[in-house]
């Protein structure tokens, strides 16, 4: 069964550094999403991406964040200058038709 994959599974970085989180969505899916879950808190929506552009983003997704689909298979989330409060589990999701979202296993980001 096709799955969403994410790399790395864990990332530790210093405050102020740039990080890129990578996702490979399910191959025939057209809608892509990033969510995050700060430890002990709700899963929060960051951004959705369709037809090579952002379709929706939350207040969390400020200028420090960007997304890209650099080729036909990867979907990346970049945090330009990480802050302590960016420490969280980041989930990528994809959907064939925008109805059901399938999630990857997540990348745990720790900012020191």
């Amino acid at each position, binding site marked *: 069964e096709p799955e969403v994959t994410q790399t790395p599974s864990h990332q530790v970085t210093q405050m102020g550094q740039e990080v890129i989180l990578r996702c490979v969505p399910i191959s025939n899916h057209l809608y892509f999403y990033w969510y995050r879950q700060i430890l002990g808190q709700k899963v929060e929506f960051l951004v959705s991406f369709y037809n090579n552009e952002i379709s929706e983003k939350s207040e969390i997704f400020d200028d420090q964040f960007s997304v890209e689909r650099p080729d036909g298979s990867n979907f990346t989330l970049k945090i330009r200058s990480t802050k302590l409060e960016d420490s969280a589990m980041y989930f990528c999701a994809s959907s064939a038709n925008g109805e*059901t979202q399938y999630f990857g296993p997540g990348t745990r980001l720790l900012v020191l």
Partner: protein
Amino acid sequence: AQSVTQPDIHITVSEGASLELRCNYSYGATPYLFWYVQSPGQGLQLLLKHFSGDTLVQGIKGFEAEFKRSQSSFNLRKPSVHWSDAAEYFCAVGDAGNMLTFGGGTRLMVKP
């Protein structure tokens, strides 16, 4: 604004006992409703979904959920819990192509 409430943060049941996890939502239109499960260190796995039609939907692993429009609820049930069901369960509401809004989750513990 859409919101999801899961009133029970923790629930403990004995193995073999029945289970009901509560979910209440607030949404302007007819929502898409989902239940996801997260095992420790894992991603979010889709258990079941409701878009329209039947009020009782069947999912994987023997789970089902009942949509009650009048109560704005979408409670998850299982007739007989197994030890492997111990996990965190998230209810979510959304719309086609758009963000999911998650509840705070209910952590299920199963006593032998």
